[in-house]
């Protein structure tokens, strides 16, 4: 490493510090405090200088690292090793992960909190896999995916509370409703691509949320829907004292009553739903329609010149992606037993898109890793309250610095002529 490089990267870091100063100066440096009968400005320059110093140092280290042209940092070493392992032994990795997920509720350290986090991570994994069809495979950047999650949750909640049908009837219905909304969104955006598509889908997500707030007669507006039936274990409810003529889960199996039963059941429910999503995606990727999605992502004009119908292809992608969002939504509704429009804000869409992009577009394993990483980290820092969003942002920055194409970016062909060479 030459002296020139060091000076250069030092200059660069000083410049970064300047930008940081301009940003942190007013945002962090000046605070309003209410004292007596008015607002006063207090300053906290010490903190500003600390932050600016950190920025300079961080930038300098990144520069040093890239100047050496070899990836030596712990993080990138770890991730490249990790992606190598997951690619070489994709099958083993998947089986191990599924086995681990299957025994997870019975591990000694697993308590209620761990289960809740695991259920949340699995919900996001399922959403990520659903969105992966639209964003990763078909290349349609959908920033309003939460709309389908909301449609699924609300249709489940409304059907279940109105007709009293069981979870297993309402789930497919909710999926169908969401798929229908997927097509509804699909039609007006057929001609749009990239940024324009992103903006329209973003608007669609907001439209659904605002309808949910304002259509008071049906959705109960901002108050949300309460008393959504819990799922039952094939007809056996998880209740301490079942109604007349009913047997509950713990009585049937002669167990001590515990709320954990329901949690564990919910965990397996979302695990199975997520695995179905994954299996379906892996299968359909190898079918003509899956290849057409990817071809559409690569070059729409070439697709047309080969006789691929772009309208149908896009609509199926939207519909199927939305359907899985709807399934996840029904699960969310039955788990919470209460839903309101507040659960379906833009930030949810943003998190799901982040999971897909950071995982590596189109990579199923990547979605799992990104979900665990992003949701897990925000959960881990829950005690730090307001700082946990910093952890979330930091995680994103780290991935983008070291793995700009996502954690796992390699794509495997859907069909091989010469078989696997390895």
């Amino acid at each position, binding site marked *: 490493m030459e002296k020139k490089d060091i000076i250069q990267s030092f200059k660069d870091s000083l410049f970064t510090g300047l930008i940081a100063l301009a940003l942190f100066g007013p945002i962090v440096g000046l605070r309003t405090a209410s004292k007596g009968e008015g607002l006063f400005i207090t300053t906290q320059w010490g903190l500003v200088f600390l932050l600016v110093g950190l920025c300079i140092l961080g930038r300098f280290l990144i520069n040093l690292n890239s100047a050496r042209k070899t990836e030596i940092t712990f993080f990138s070493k770890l991730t490249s090793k990790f992606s190598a392992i997951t690619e070489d032994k994709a099958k083993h990795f998947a089986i191990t992960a599924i086995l681990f997920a299957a025994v997870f509720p019975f591990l000694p350290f697993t308590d209620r909190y761990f289960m809740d986090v695991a259920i949340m991570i699995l919900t996001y994994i399922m959403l990520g896999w659903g969105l992966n069809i639209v964003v990763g495979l078909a290349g349609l950047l959908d920033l309003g995916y939460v709309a389908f999650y909301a449609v699924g949750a609300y249709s489940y909640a409304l059907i279940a509370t109105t007709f009293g049908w069981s979870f297993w009837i309402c789930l497919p219905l909710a999926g169908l409703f969401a798929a229908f909304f997927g097509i509804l969104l699909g039609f007006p955006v057929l001609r749009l691509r990239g940024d324009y598509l992103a903006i329209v889908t973003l608007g669609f997500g907001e439209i659904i949320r605002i309808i949910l707030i304002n259509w008071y007669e049906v959705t109960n507006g901002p108050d949300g829907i309460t008393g959504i039936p819990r799922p039952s274990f094939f007809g056996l409810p998880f209740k301490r004292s079942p109604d007349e003529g009913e047997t509950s889960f713990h009585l049937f199996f002669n167990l001590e009553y515990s709320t954990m039963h329901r949690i564990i059941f919910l965990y397996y429910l979302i695990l199975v739903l997520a695995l179905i999503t994954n299996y379906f995606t892996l299968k359909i990727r*190898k079918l*003509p329609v899956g*290849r*057409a999605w990817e071809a559409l992502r690569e070059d729409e004009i070439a697709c047309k*010149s*080969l*006789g691929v119908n772009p309208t149908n292809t896009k609509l199926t992608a939207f519909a199927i992606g939305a359907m899985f969002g709807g399934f996840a939504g029904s699960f969310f509704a039955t788990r919470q037993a209460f839903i309101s429009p507040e659960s379906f804000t833009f930030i949810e869409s943003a998190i799901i898109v982040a999971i897909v992009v950071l995982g590596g577009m189109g990579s199923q394993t990547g979605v799992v890793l990104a979900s665990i990483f992003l949701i897990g980290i925000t959960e881990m820092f829950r005690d730090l309250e307001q700082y946990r969003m910093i952890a979330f942002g930091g995680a994103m920055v780290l991935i983008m610095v070291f793995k700009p194409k996502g954690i796992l970016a390699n794509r495997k062909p859907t*069909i091989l*002529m*010469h078989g696997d060479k390895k």
Partner: protein
Amino acid sequence: MSNLLSVENLTMKFGGLTAIDDLSFDAKNNQITSIIGPNGAGKTTVFNCLTGFYKPTNGQMFLHKEDSKISLRKYTDFKIAYVAKVARTFQNIRLFPAMSVLENLLVAQHNELMVASGYSLFGLLNLKSYRDKEQLAVDKAKYWLDIIGLTHRADDNAGDLPYGDQRKLEIVRAMCIEPRLLCLDEPAAGLNPKESAELNKLLKFIKTEKQTGILLIEHDMSVVMGISDHVVVLNYGKKIFEGTADQTKNSKEVIEAYLGVDE
């Protein structure tokens, strides 16, 4: 030899600009018809009209089938390739770069495979009828890859191929839809002499072995003169000459259009 394509009084206007002006020509089965002309003569616009990317202002284009003829005007977009079986390649190569060579060729057989997979239902159930059809599609891809000598790279990404191979791949990808008319937009652009010669061989093979007429836009005169059966020369959207390659070479109008007139 029977007519395959007849273009009658084709006119295409963009606002005040007339890109094609009352153009008529025919292309025959099992022949290579070249469209040449200086830059901006309207060659690619003719292609875009034929392949449904533009809707012509005026005029008709007919594709002749045994004893009937279909009007290409009626089809737009993907239907040109799907129904009328007119395939095309592009001036700037449009492969699916992140997909493998084999996948590129399978996407070209999308519509047959879609029916075979029962619109994904049979495929999801992994029925044998679908697997057989898929194998047939792979065999067809292999047949074409053998011809252009790329079988060993079938599983590599199309974007990783050398430029010349990408050109050839795009042509055989178009051939995978079993077109009746193949429109090639400057297939020799950027190729070295060896690659151009290979391209000539490939086009001659398609012409003689397949029931396909070829329409060719090209600047590379070694390609045009080497393989064309018929040449149409455009300048400023008008046809200024039509004839065999030899006639074209010696035509006064053509030389004037390319080199200008002595004052």
